[in-house]
């Protein structure tokens, strides 16, 4: 969008060689992104690129913009990004792309026209449906439920919540969604919000928390409260965090994709873009190492696969 891009272009413009790929998660210190970025690192090591990870301390778009700018200045080959805001990053990304940097989003997307590729963990309908199905099954398809989300502005969360509402209205008329609360992806806030929910709605049957921080905090509260076993909890969590709660019966089942695979795929997507194998157009096909081959869908979206459901029987098989 600006005329100044040429200055930074000399190091990043020369097409197929620059396999410096930097992962930019929503924030540092987040186990989920640790796993995904480690997957990216593994992939990059496989094809002989340079891996790096930078990011803001807290999940704010302005912090990410600063890093995108920095990466543009450095002239990296590609950025693998989980966006804190769908549009606030677009201008910075635009400048990066003008300077020859490829931009792949994963986990949380920006508007499709800003970036080259989006690696989608699972399609939103699938994510919404698996959680609704889980909670419906656990509470006997009737009664009050609530949602404990991350921050109020999280794009992916909000999309899922909307789809869950649609799904509930269409197929589960006896389930009433009483409230959506936001734990800000903070342990303590999520914990206290869970307490408040249970307090406010004595009839509550279940809680859905489509965020790894939220579900573990809520499980932690339930574990020691009189609601354990009476209120069902499901959502998206990592096996390592949820193992205890599943084993002691606080949580019956929850879902997630494999974040490591997500990062792995993002890295291969970035590589394909850098090397000019794909442009992000619908129908482009690229190789993703151990995951096989993937095809770019509409709007430059690549779908990882279906979410996986974890329960007492299979949780021991996973370590992430």
């Amino acid at each position: 969008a600006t005329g100044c891009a040429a200055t930074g272009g000399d190091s990043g413009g020369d097409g197929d060689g620059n396999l410096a790929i930097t992962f930019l998660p929503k924030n540092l210190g987040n186990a989920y992104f640790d796993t995904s970025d480690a997957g990216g690192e593994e992939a990059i090591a496989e094809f002989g690129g340079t891996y790096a990870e930078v990011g803001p301390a807290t999940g704010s778009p302005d912090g990410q913009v600063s890093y995108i700018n920095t990466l543009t200045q450095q002239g990296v080959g590609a950025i693998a990004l989980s966006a804190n805001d769908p549009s606030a990053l677009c201008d910075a990304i635009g400048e990066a792309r003008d300077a020859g940097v490829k931009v792949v989003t994963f986990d949380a997307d920006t508007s499709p026209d800003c970036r080259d590729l989006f690696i989608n963990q699972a399609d939103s309908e699938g994510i919404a449906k698996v959680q609704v199905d889980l909670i419906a099954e656990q509470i006997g398809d009737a009664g009050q439920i609530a949602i404990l989300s991350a921050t109020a502005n999280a794009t992916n969360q909000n999309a899922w919540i909307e789809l869950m509402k649609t799904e509930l209205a269409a197929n589960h008329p006896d389930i009433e969604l009483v409230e959506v609360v936001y734990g800000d992806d903070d342990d303590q806030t999520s914990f206290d919000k869970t307490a408040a929910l249970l307090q406010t709605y004595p009839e509550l049957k279940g809680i859905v928390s489509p965020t790894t921080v939220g579900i573990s905090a809520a499980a932690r509260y339930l574990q020691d409260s009189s609601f354990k076993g009476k209120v069902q909890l499901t959502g998206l969590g990592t096996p390592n965090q949820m193992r205890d709660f599943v084993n002691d019966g606080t949580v019956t089942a929850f879902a997630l994709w494999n974040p490591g695979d997500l990062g792995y795929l993002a890295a291969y997507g970035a590589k394909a873009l850098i090397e000019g194998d794909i442009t992000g157009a619908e129908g482009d096909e690229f190789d993703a190492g151990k995951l096989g081959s993937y095809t770019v869908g509409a709007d430059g979206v690549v779908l990882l696969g279906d979410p996986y459901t974890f329960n007492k029987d299979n949780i021991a098989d996973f370590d992430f």
Partner: protein
Amino acid sequence: MKMLSKLIKARETGIMIALVLVVVVATARNPTFLFSPDGFRDLLLTPSILLLLAVGQAIVIITRSVDLSVGSVLGLTAYLTGRLFIDLPGIPIIAVFVIGIVFGGLLGLINGALVAFAKVPALVITLGTLYAYRGINVLWTGSDRINGSDLPSAFLSLGTSSLFGIPWLTIIALVVLVAAGWFLRTQRAGRELYAIGSDPEAANLYGLKVTQRVLVAFIFSGALAGLAGVLYAARYGTVSSQAGVNLELQAVGAAVIGGVAIFGGSGTVWGAAIGAFLLLTINRALPILGVQDFWQRAVVGVLIIGAIVLDRVLAVRQSRKLLEMRDES
């Protein structure tokens, strides 16, 4: 009779009434707020950690300083607690408490030494250590996270279980509160803290050990933040590098709402404790009163301001009364 009038005039009375009001209204709306095992427990449990921080904060503020690093100290100690249980399996719980308190005290000592010896305003120093301690925490923790499964269940149950219906956490907090209140009221050293806050220069002229006392106040605040960190780990079970972020403003807020003068010299830890209770109880009551999630922060803001305005109005009313009394005599 004299006791009664003293009680009515006390600065803490106003916000105590506010607290009772909040509880009564919330309970009227939804009886489980108070009259259910979990409701009663959470009423006491939720503010306990903040209470510890507020007590430490009150003592520091009374000496005309402020400790903005408490949230970061709490975070560091909470993670340390988890690491201790992971790296030294079988370590006695009491040892972890001691280590946490000492570690927090050490961090407080750094604050205090910079403030007292370098004669630098506490707000600046602790704003600096707020960043620095948190940064160290993030460097150390990385994306690691202490999970409930890493901690012994005896320790975890400290965070939630009760004795005669009163949660252990609350009991610990109350013991600290009573000790601090007793110390400030009846001990020479406690009174000297007030003197130092009231006029540091006069305290110096007077020959009080200003440096030493300020140092001790900071160590105390740090140690309490350390204790709060250990309890945080026990209560929440998960500790990431972001544990305790933004708690400092809540701690200062609790103390100020509780009538601790921000420029030192007056106020009590009792007030700070009630302030902590009020702050978090309001937070819990709002959803019950049907305030939508998004607006809750705004309501908390209004209530903080309301509490200090009320406090001020009462103080002005009282001093006017004193003047009128003098006229009549």
